């Protein structure tokens, strides 16, 4: 009964931008919870600054961004920049939502380690997080 040091990933799931649908984000949050992660969910309409600030205060290992609006190439670089500003370059980044194939290369260059599109088995997301999150 010695409380074992918790080493399970701490994940921020955030929705940048103005679209108001967060069903997908919530499904991912629940899947990660069911996989044993501690998931911080911040709700819709987050600015890049708010997302980075939440990642800092919550000291997360992983940030997952969900987007449906099509504004990812505009918003994601700003999130990455805000994370860098706060020295949070070591967090594992992934994203999900409606993201055209041709944007994959650009997002990978930004540092996104995985892109999950509609129809993804949520177990793959959980596995990805466990395989790649380094508990610092």
């Amino acid at each position, binding site marked *: *009964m*010695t*409380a074992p*040091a*918790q*080493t*399970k990933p*701490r994940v921020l799931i955030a929705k940048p931008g103005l679209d108001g649908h967060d069903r997908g984000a919530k499904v991912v*949050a*629940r899947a*990660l*919870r*069911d*996989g*044993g*992660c*501690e*998931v*911080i*969910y*911040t*709700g819709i309409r987050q600015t890049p*600054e*708010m997302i980075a*600030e*939440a990642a*800092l*205060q*919550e*000291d997360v290992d992983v940030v997952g961004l969900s987007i449906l609006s099509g504004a990812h190439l505009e918003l994601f670089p700003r999130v990455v920049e805000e994370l860098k500003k*706060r*020295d*949070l370059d070591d967090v594992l980044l992934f994203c999900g939502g409606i993201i055209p194939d041709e944007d994959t290369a650009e997002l990978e260059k930004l540092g996104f380690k995985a892109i999950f599109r509609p129809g993804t088995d949520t177990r793959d997301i959980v596995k990805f997080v466990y395989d790649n999150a380094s508990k610092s």
Partner: protein
Amino acid sequence: MEDIVERFLAGNRRALARVISRIENETPEGREYLRQLYPHSGRAHTIGVTGSAGAGKSTLTGALAAEYRRHGKTVGIVAVDPSSPFTQGAILGDRIRMQDLALDEGVFVRSMAGRGALGGLAPSINDVVAAVDAFGFDYIIIETVGAGQDEVEIAGTAMTTVLVNNPGTGDDIQAMKAGILEIADVLVVNKADHPGADTLASQLQGLLNLSPKDMRRPPIVKTVSTRGEGMQELAAAIAEHREYLDEHGLLQQQREKNARHQVLSAARAILLQRIQAATPDEQLDGLVQRVASRDLDPHTAAEELANVVSG
């Protein structure tokens, strides 16, 4: 290691976030950080906000913090949500209701999972609050879901406990009768924009009137947290409670009580660790088997285990 404590004491928020994680995970570094930071804690007014699920605790916490910010005060917030008993995972969603504070440099919000602690609070809550305190915030608000026992636990951690109620949920009054009122220093009727707020307030007042004359009667404050209404009154009621504690020398008494509780429960954890470390698995398994088959009673078995450390 020095470095992170130094940065912490210089006001670096990233260092605070990291220190909290280490303390929360009960790592050796976490223990060391706490050892160094503990003398810096004890200055903030700690406020516990409890009440049933969905009562509006997070919204109220955000609105109260905004009220303190208007007066130039800084606020640390620790919001506890339960962990799943099956997977140990958790969804921590209290920040959703605190968005107005998201970019305020004078506010720091940290979500914590309950991690199955008895009483619903997180096991390391006292240590985490001490760290946030050491950072130098004027106020620390601790949000926890109340389910009977938890309110009592939060009363040990916070100087002032605020119990959030809602109109139209008759079970609240029932719960109060079970002694919960005794731990509430301020009673809030939140969602006062809903019908029945006045009825609930007068029911609560009626209940308070039954308590012994020499007992302090907690004030009742009506709030509409979503609109920030009643926050001035709530802040005033909290300040009035703080003055009451100071005037009656109760703060020191409360601190000693909480310190005793923490020292004893930490000692209990250390002893258990030592027992487990000194007990080969086979020995424990053997004892367990004997108790399971009614060959031995649990207390005699426990004595046998405990002898390793007392001898």
